[in-house]
């Protein structure tokens, strides 16, 4: 075997509402713990340098690029991945708005995009187009041209505000 780091860190945290305990090497990135350790394959690796947002997960509600966060840093925190959001019926209005507005194509950026949108809407349920562009600038989509994602987030905001869906 290659030189594996001897040191492991025991961490307890919450993933998608469930308590998790893991022994992780200090150099392991959160994305690898989530994808390979916990088989949460909805977390997507792309640029691997915190540019594209495909690996976005929410840690205590805030979006982070899991490719560049050491796994041990989520000790004691709440991690939400797309699988957790999808399982939460109260949140499906966001992903529904993405589908209704054709705001996804290949789907590779979509988990990170939906989670970033949730984080934005949690903070600001009435974002302007400029708010959306600014907040979402760290999430790249190569398929849609972004316009329909802006529209989806605006529609999700309307649903959240008006309670048309809950």
């Amino acid at each position, binding site marked *: 075997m290659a030189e594996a780091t001897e040191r492991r860190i025991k961490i307890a945290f919450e993933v998608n509402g469930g308590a998790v305990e893991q022994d992780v090497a200090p150099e392991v990135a959160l994305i690898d713990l989530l994808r390979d350790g916990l088989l949460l394959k909805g977390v997507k690796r792309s640029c*691997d340098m915190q540019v594209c947002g495909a690996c976005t997960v929410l840690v205590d509600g805030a979006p982070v690029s899991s490719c560049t966060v050491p796994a041990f840093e989520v000790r004691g925190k709440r991690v939400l991945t797309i699988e957790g959001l*999808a399982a939460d019926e109260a949140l499906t209005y966001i992903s*529904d708005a993405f*589908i209704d507005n054709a705001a996804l*194509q290949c789907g*590779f950026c979509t988990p990170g995009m939906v989670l970033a949108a949730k984080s934005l809407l949690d903070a600001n349920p009435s974002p302007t187009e400029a708010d959306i562009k600014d907040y979402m600038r760290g999430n*790249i989509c*190569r398929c849609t*041209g972004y316009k329909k994602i802006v529209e989806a987030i605006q529609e999700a905001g309307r649903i959240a505000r008006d309670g048309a869906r809950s």
Partner: protein
Amino acid sequence: MTQQTYTTVGQPVRRIDGVDKVSGRAEFAVDVVVPGMAYGKLVPSPLPHALITSIDASRARALPGVYAVLTGAELVNMETHYGSDKKDRPIVAMGKVRFQGEPVAAVAAVDLQTAEAAAELIEVEYEELSAASDIASALADGAVPIHDSNWCHEYGYEWGDVDEAFKGCDRIYEDTFTFPMVYHYAMEPHSCVASFEGDRLRVWTSAQHPFLVRAELARIFRLQLDEVQVIVPYVGGGYGSKSYTKIEPLVMALSREAGRPVRLAQSVEESMKTVRRHAAKATVRTGVMNDGTFVARECLSYVDTGGYTDNGVRVTERISDRIVGPYMFDHVRVKSYGIYTNSTPAGSYRSIGGPQASWACESATDIIAADLGIDPIALRLKNLAKKGDELRRGKRPLEGDLAPKLRLVLDEFGWDSYLPVAPDPAHPNIKRGIGFAASVTNSGASPTSTSLVRFHADGSATVYIGTTEIGQGSRSAMAQVAAEELRIPLESIKVIGSDTDVVPYDRSTGSSRSTTLMGLAVHDAAVDVREQLMQLAAGHFETFADQLEASAGQVSFKGESITFGGLVREMFGGSGGELMGRGYVTSNHASGMLHDDPVFWEVSIGAAEVEVDEDTGAVRLLRYVSAADPGKAINPKQVEGQDEGAAMQAIGHTMFEEMLFEDGQFLNPNLVDYRVPTFMDLPDEFETVLIEFGDGPGPYGSKGVGEGGIVAVAPAIANAIFNATGVRVRDLPLTPERVWRAIDAARRGS
């Protein structure tokens, strides 16, 4: 064609893979886990051009956890080279490397960390050769040949008497344009799990063309087609980057060495060293009369195909097919050359040769208009091809008039009533302007597609297609076609894609071909089932099939009805059974629409408004109106999405995207140094006009739209910059520095 009103076709239905994709459930090749699989790692060449004098992998092989090392020496009892047109690419470097990043070896190990550690232990010695990483250096005297020579392919065609015609022209214009190397950035890098099992190969891969990968693997490993299974899950973006065969032969050869399945998931950097778009240099010479009549055109293009041909043959041909533009000339001579350079091999990218050709052609149109003092739209309309014209002699005549299509875009844009906002007195050097461009491209690739529909005893159906779901929404569109023809709800259709052991043959997913060609195959397979159902119903009601009405999953006759499922169960005499329908699409398709090449002409139209800061060269794209011409939109929202996405990719190559090489060293192989458009690059107004004249050869008069949106953007924006500033830029991308230098040169010159 068969109906005037539709129930499902034409509706912006929710895409049927939507829930999979928003929930994280959608599986991509990068997510595939196969029991017992090893992890692969490539050893890239640090040099762009070199002879390999030795490879010592002994330390890597001795490392615990390493299963195998693959080098050129292991490529025995198999074919060693591959490629879509020219089989010039070794599966792993053999004796020579031709671009930086070319795999010289690959490791399979128990885990990725071990594979990476082993890769570091492989010692390769090189004898460096001088590198040529652009067309000019590759063609310079004394350039070291990258293959037998640095000439990859040549193509051309001619009609009329060009030399004589130029003599009779009032004016002749000649301009040269360059287009940079650009990268697709499909967000899922190329990924593959390959399993060599002796007389059987299995591969899970991010390929757009699974059946072409199957054929290539069968040839390389000397097996029959039925012994090779290519499984393509959802593909995380393609745009051409995953066309033909990429890493599959290498991973399969590595699996053979390792004696177990091997997974290779590339990084973005590795994918940027796998494929890119062809850089181009194109010279357009046009002879015109003073009244604006186009008489003669001569074009000479060079495309840079990098270290290996990949799709360089077709790109060399397409740039010439497309560079004459949507205009009629009585005299044409076109020539193009594909050139090898020491850089990432260049392959397909959304409209091969199209953006390069249009950049030259449609910039030239505005140059001519400005010099003649003719309105650029009027000049276009005067020379535009009409329905039935042979834009390229011997090729398919144009399906529909272009002028009314241009009109739709101009009207949406408000072109005729445009008045530029007067410069802000505080910022007098910030100017606004508008620009336009249009093109047609020969699309559709080859008309070879098949489909199978299984109709179940409960009235639901499963549709089998070889089209890969790369985001374009093929599964939804095909389900809509099948639901329409089967007269059942969309919810009763399941679409199975892209496992060559399961689905029937499809040539490829690309060239905007799937809705047109696979659409016809699915249409025909569904009609085949429906006709069988009507025959069963005729027997059931003891009448003739043409007396019956089929809708909403049942057949009615004189006030009585029976469900489709009931007919199937009745036929088999029990509770089960199923019907099968097939659709074959060839150039001899019964519609009579597929005889000619191309399958159809894809239309591109765009209008832009920009704001240029003459003091900095910064260009803001204020408005962009694009057009998608699907003939008939099966799913209008998805059509818009294709067009918007294509246009946004073009905004990238127009404004800032460029792969930079210096002496063969790739300077910006990552997403920080190679920037792609983000939300912040969205124009203030961004519209797509849908053109639905029913003039396509696909089902319901449809035709493809995947590529059109990428073609017109660059010349439309450059023409708008000219309109704003009077300055013409002939090289992409239109970076602030480049635009400022052009403005500055014009100021000094005047």
